[in-house]
Each structure stands twice: as C-alpha cells, then as structure tokens.
C-alpha cells in the first residue's frame, strides 16, 4: 500500500471547502522522486515513509512515519 506522504490534515473547523477538497483528492504524480507512505502489510504492520524514484523504482530513503522528508537530489520532481 502506498500513497503520497506528508499531507497534513487541515483543521476541520477552519479549512475552506477548497482546502478540504485538496486534502481529500489532490495528489501528485511526479516523474522522479516521490515521497510516499507505505504499510508493511505482510510483516510488522507498521506504516513508514519511503522516497522512491517513480521511473527507476529505486528506493532512495526509508524513514519513520513521524519524520519529515529528507533533502534529496532530484527534489520532488515535477507534477
């Protein structure tokens, strides 16, 4: 299971409809480095972060689910 990482849930009391809609539905699809959330379904059942290159599928970094994205060459790619 993988999905785009580092999407903050806006404050539901103050978020506009547009902000809430973006939080729910809008996702990047970069050609390049992508920061993702993964779930180790067939193992320890822990969520974790992965920086992955969407072209080569190379795994560039693995980091904790509460940690911020590391700085990587290639940036976030273009969406």
């Amino acid at each position: 299971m993988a999905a785009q990482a580092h999407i903050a849930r806006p404050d539901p009391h103050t978020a506009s409809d547009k902000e809430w809609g973006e939080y729910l539905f809008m996702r990047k699809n970069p050609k390049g480095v992508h920061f993702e959330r993964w779930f180790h379904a067939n193992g320890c059942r822990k969520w974790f972060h992965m920086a992955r290159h969407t072209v080569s599928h190379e795994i560039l970094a693995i980091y904790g689910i509460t940690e911020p994205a590391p700085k990587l060459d290639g940036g976030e790619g273009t969406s």
Partner: protein
Amino acid sequence: MTQAFRNADGGLIDRGTRINFTYDGQRYQGNAGDTLASALLANGVRLVGRSFKYHRPRGIVGSGAEEPNALIQLGEGALTEPNTRATQIELFEGLVANSQNAWPGVGFDIGGINNIVSKVIPAGFYYKTFMWPAKSWMLYEKFIRGAAGLGKAPTEPDPDIYEKRRVHCDVLVVGAGPAGLAAARAAGASGARIILADEQSGFGGSLLSSKATVDGKSGAQWAADVTQELAGQEEVRLLPRTTVTGYYDHNFLVAVERITDHLPFADRKGPRQRVWKIRAKQVILATGAIERPLVFAENDRPGVMLADAAKTYVNRFGARPGSRAVVFTNNDSAYRAAIDAADGGIHVVAIVDLRAKPEGTFVRQARDRGIEVIANSAITAVKGAKQVSEVDVMTLSDDGTSVSGGRRSLDCDLVMMSGGWNPTVHLASQSGAKTVWDDTLATFLPGEPKQAQRNVGGVAGQFGLAACLESGASAGAGAALDAGFDAQAGKTPAIEAGEGDGELNLRPIWTVPSDRKGAKRFHDFQNDVTAADIALAHRENYASVEHFKRYTTTGMGTDQGKTSNVNGLAILAELRNEPVPSVGHTTFRPFYTAVTVGALAGNDTGPQLLDPVRKTAMHTWHEAHGAHFEDVGAWKRPYCYLREGESVKQAVDRETLATRTSVAILDASTLGKIDIQGPDAAEFLDRIYTNMFSSLKVGSCRYGFMCKDDGMVFDDGVTARIGENRFLMSTTTGGAPNVLNWLEEWLQTEWTDLEVYCTSVTTQWAAIAIAGPNSRRLLSELTNVDLSNDAFPFMTWQDGDVAGIPSRIFRISFSGETGFEVQCPASYAMALWRALMTAGEKFNIMPYGTEAMHVLRAEKGFVIVGQDTDGTTTPHDLGMSWIVSKKKDDFLGKRGLARPDTLREDRKQLVGLITDDPNEVIPEGAHISPEPHAPPPVPMEGWVSSSYYSPNCGRSIALALIQRGHERMGESVAIPLEDKVVRAKIVSSVFFDEEGERLRG
C-alpha cells in the same frame, strides 16, 4: 529410416543410443543428444513448416531459441503443446511431433494459394480489409485464424504438475557459455551463493559447437570440467534447461526450468516445469548473441540457414544440413562456419561475400583450403520450391544498392548466411538499461546497467573466445566482491593462437539488391514480412517504430523478432534516411521465450488452491448438511442449506420463514472482530465512528458507522464496551482487514498521541446468531443467564456458559427478530452449534444461510455496506442521519459531510421499491431511468442495490439509490431491462414490522 546425413563420428551425440520418434506421422531414428531439429536434418528432412501468411514452404533456419520456422505441435491429447521450436526440443524415445501451419501437410498446403495471390496481401492487409465493418471481422476472423493459426491449444485439462520456487542468491549468472562459466567459476570460488542458469541441456554454450580448445582440451571438455568443479561447490546451484525469461525491478528475475520435458513419458516423475523467482544481489548477463540473417531475394527457401546454425549441426550433432553449401556473408564469422562445414563433409561450393576485400584470420584459412571466395558479390536469386537447388550470384555496385554484370549460377542444396550478430540484449533491456548502437558491429549493445548487473561475452559485443573468458572471470569476481565476498578473477585459460580475436569486419548491407523485380526479400520469416512491406509502411507514414511494428507485424510472432528486429529497423532507418538509433526499437518485454501457463500457475490451481480459502469452525458441519456455499471475501459461507429435492429459492424461502416463525441459527463467525484496548480507546472510537462511543456503558453495545474523511460510508458494525478501556469492535466480513489497517493508519500516522492497541480476534471467537420468536426459549435451555427483557435488554451483552462452554452472549439482531449472538472460543464452536441444533429440535430449528439473512435484513431495511453503498454514499443518503453525531467536535467524515457536493439535494438516496407485479424480482444492479425508451445513452437516475423475493411480505422487495429519493415517496419509476421495462413504486425502505416490536420483544 537411415540417418543418411549423419557423420560417422564427431559431435556430442551418443551414437550408441538410438531414439525412435515420429514426425508428421512418419517414424524416424535419432540419437541421444539430438534435438528434434538435428535429428530431422540427419534424416534429410528439410521442409518443416509453412509460413504464417503466404504459406510458403520453410526450413530450419537456426539452432536455438531464435528459430522462426520450425514450430512444432509437440505431443498429443492433453499433453499437446503448440509453438515449441524443433531446435530446442531434446529428442526422447517415443516423441511425437507435428508441423504447424500446414494442412493437410507441409508438402501440399491448401493455404499456399495465398502465395500465388500474395500481391493482394501486403502489409496491413488484415487491418485494412477485415477490420471494418466490425461485424465482418467476426466472419473473417474464423477463416483467417484457421488458415493462419499458430498451433492448437490442448482441449483437455493439463495432467502435469508444476512448481514455483523462490530463491535468493549473491550472484546470478545467466548463460553458461564461456563467459558465463568463467564468471560463475570466479564468483563461486569466493563462497558466494551462485545460481548459473542456461536454457540448454548442457553447459558450454558456443563451446559445444566450436572446435576451439581451451587450456589444451576441447571447448566442450573444458565446459564439462568447469561444470563439475562448480557442482562440487556447496553454494552453487546449477540450473540447466532453465531459461531466464524476465528481469524486473530490484534484481528480481524469473526463470523457467524444464525438468522432465526431455524424458520419455514413462520416466517423467514429479513436476514437469519449475518457475524460479530469483532475488539476486548481483546479476551477470552472459546471454550471448544471435546470428542475423541477410535480407536477400527468396531467402526463405528451405535450405537457407544461419551459418552458425549449420556449423552447430555439423560440429555438435554430426548432422549435415546439406551436401553442397554456398556461404553468403558480410563478415568474417561465416568463414569459420564454412571451414567447419567443409571439415564435416559438406562440399562448400563458394563463399559469396558482400565485402569488396575480405581479409581476416578465417578468410585466409578458407582460401588456404581452396574454398572459392566470390568477393564484392551478392546472391540475387534462390531457386528450388521445397528445397534450395541453385543460387544466382552477381557483382555488387560500390554503394551496395544494385547488382550488375553476368549472372553466375551455383548448384547447391544449402545456403549458409551471416549478416552479423545481434547481442541478446533482451534481459539487459528489461532491467531498465538503455541499448546503444554500435557502428562497428552494426547492432544494439546493452548500455549502462541500471541495476546491480554486468554484461559479459557476446551480449557485450565480445565475440573472441579469449575476451569472453577474461571478461567473464573479471565480472564474476567483481560481482562476488560487490556482494561482500573476497573473490579473484584467477588465471585466464589458454586459447590457441589460430582462434582469432573475434573481429567481424562487417559491412552492413541491410537489403541485398537483386535484378529480379518483385522477388520477396524476407526479414521476418515467421510473420512473413519483407523489405517491401517495410517500404509500404514507410510510404503510408507508419513512421514511429511502434506503429511500424504493429502495421507490418514485424517481431510479433512467437519468436518475438529474435532474428528480424534489427534488420527491420535498419531497413526502416535507410528508408527514412536516418541512423538506426534515431529510429529506435520497440520495448523488450518479458518473456524472452514463451512460458507455459501451467508453470506460472504452479500449485495454485484447482478448487482447493486457486485462491486461499477461509473456513469457519463449523465448516464441516455445513458441508455435511447440504450447505450451498458462496464466497464472501476468501470465506466460504453457507448461502443456504439444500434439503432433498429442494431448489435454492425454496431453501431460502423456508429458512427466511422459519426465522420469523420459530427459531433459526446462522454461522456469523466471519464478521470481523477487533480487540481495542488502551487508555484512549473511547476517544479513538469517537473519532473513528460517526456516532458517540465514549458514552457507551460497560456491558452495552452500539451499532456504528465509519466514514472515510470525505464523509462516505466505509464500514459498519456493532461495537461492545468490554471494560473502561476495552472494546470489541465488529466489522463487515469483507471489510475486516481494511478496517484494521484503517485503524492502524490513523493511530500510527495522525493520532500518534493516542494510546490504543488493536488486535484482530476475528477467528478467536466463533459467532452464532440465534434469531426468531423462540430464540429466548431455546437459549434459556442451555444457559443459566437470565435472558428476560429486563435482565438482558436489547443492545447489551453478558458473559456466561452456554451448553457448558464459556461464552459471551450479545442481545443484538440483524434479522429484526428477537435474537442473540453467542460468541465462544472457536475450538468449542462446533460443540456449541451441535448443542443448539439438538436443543432446538422441539422448535423445529434450522440453520439459515447468508441469503435468508439478506432477505430478513432487507425486509427490515437494514443496509449492507458495500451492497447498498458504493463509496459515494453518505449516512444521510441512507436516511440514517440519526447515526451522525452533532455533539462531537470532530470525527472522520464530519468535515467531508459539510462539503457542498455532499449537501446537494439531488444526491442518490436509499429508498424501498415495490414492483407493480409482486412476483417480479428486479435484478440487482438494474438502472432506474426517467426516460426508459430514450435512445442510447439512456438517462439514469439511480440503481437497484438489493432485491429479493420476501416470503414474509408475500411479494418481491427492493432497495434502491435514487436521486432525491427521500422526497419522492409514492412515485412510480421505470427500470429498463433487456427485454422489458419494469415499473415500481418508491416506498419506505422498511417493509416488515416497522415499529420494531419483534426486535425488542
């Protein structure tokens, strides 16, 4: 039959072991060590098939996986397999093979008429003629496929067994020719875990068909010695007869091992084939190279063969593919083949060379032997219908585009051609590496590796034996080193001086000119594609290589263009006046060679193993009592229990009525159960569910809805409070794993401050629902727990023994009847079930299945998430606004439910439907239309989500999601079906006992 074309000695076959086989109904003999192709050639059989489109007679072209023509229908009956290559079938006693693509036989073929009318079957013909109108294609298709068809699929179940195996290694070496063997030897010595795979029966690759010596012994002997050395190493796994067919991400490769295909049927035991799923730290590709045909006039006549293939038949099998050979080449390698052919008893009439001044090691050797070299010349015609009888040779112009001068005819029955070599870059390309064009070799080489991978030997464009051995050893050591082992390349084996350096000195002439206008010059034998077809595609502006491929069908046969692709691209490049690399090539995709579907399935076939099956603790009871099962997720659940002579509908009706009139029990074990503990458990549930759970008292339970954060219903179930900080959540059967993952996701990623621990206990507890007016009386006979309404009110639970088994009793109901659910430790569930059935005899108890459960709940208008919802349905849409808390500050879905789209008035809302005809049961999924007779696309306003015959209502009932449904009570709507329009009235979704007296009674 005698083997008239078998040499008295030489080669690697066992002349002492004769093997009988049948080809196209005729019996022949070969020898142990033969392939079907070499045995046929030894018997003088040259004609092996008819071509795909024109049904031209075809002979054997190659000696391995590249073979485009000799496609064989192998075996008979259930064991038959189409599209195997004669060049790769090891001969075994009793082998039965038939040529394909020819009816009634290769000698006389009715489809051959296509050849005579071939002017009207140019490239793109099928598309142009038969694709429009679409209906006509249906008519033509059968005829075309019948005439063109590539073999026949077996019609009986495959009796063989297959196996899949995962394996990990430090170094995977693909290909066991000189480079691969040297690599495996260097890597293996380090103690690393090595896999060496080769598609052939024996290791050695080109050494098996070469006369070169290594370290003073024959190449084959050296290969055998190295193989033996490797076999003695504990961590080396040798996989002969194994084709690595796919190269995926992260050095994951798939290989297919043919374990018993080479054995007589009586000796075949165990799995026939094994799929290896290999995870390698390092990969070395030593996949070699495939010789390239020359594209010249009538080059598809039987008897025109790749030069190296002819050399292989002579050297390795002692079989002569002809008696009088003309060699046609644009490079040096064919000279070596010519010399070996001559040594093997073939009269080499001449070597026709497209180059002006050929002069290399082997050119000199050939001349020294007195073989005539006709330089600066081309073969312009090949004569002979079913076998080559003569070729014409003319002088080539300086620019290589035309021929002139007198025509010289050479009498021959074999043409050995060489247009250079194409490295087998398939796996390298699959791994993600770009290919790069090499001008000297005029071919594509694998570029910079994208994974932990190395290329050695022929695939890297190294055609000299010394270079292969050296690069192999160095790559083997390097790979082992990178995998963390101490490795050395070791001493490179000694090679004879006369072996040459592998230089080809090649002159590419992609389309060999001829004075014969209209003579077919094939570049793709299997798909019958000629240079003229490429020109047509180019003229019609199929400019992109992907379009060109599909238009001409170049490379789309079972051989996937192993001999044709580079020639085709180069010809297209010439027409476009561009260098080949800027034309590019189509993507190399797995599999390298075709894989039997059975091998990919492995053991995972049949009703037991095709999919994982989940069974409840009472499963065998259900089986023994007529259960008709349905799949719910991976679970097998009784849909109903069939009695003698009963139809499914009768059984469902009986079970449905029994539940409302006396008592019936349901195996509800499959519902998901999650144990939720921790100091923040109540707060957590308040955030997960739309309704409030922190206010729930210990000993009580509550029905809850979960929404995704967009406000759409995602799962539902009853959750009980077991303790101050402990809850037992139930989920839908199919949703259980998703719900658990959902809970974990929020706890781990967003609400990391909450101290809550979730554990699946779905199968820890078996569950039996007891429903019906007699349910209390039945249960009270088996327990001391006071079940009276006052002592045990609706939506509470209590612990207690039932039939002596420690259980938890819940006063809940999904049927709308007075009911209980008893949960007990799963290993006692069978005993509890039997006890209930026995005690219930006096009430005429019966088990009920999922369909009766569905009918009962639909009668009550209870929704099933996933059936009456579709991911765009809110609790409000379902008419269940009461379950959405207004008090809570936040919960998943709260903000989503306030989005303008979620608040729209024209949303689809859940209602009941009753058909005008009470016996009409609308099919579930049917659409509801405001204009059922409108021309397509017919406008839609909703759909039927649940629909049953209700014996308790005495009529059909349905639930539907209809736009603005809640305000349209009493309205008539139309449901267009295939053959009629059904009319129904919108009603409340509760059809039975609207007050709920039975439920709480």
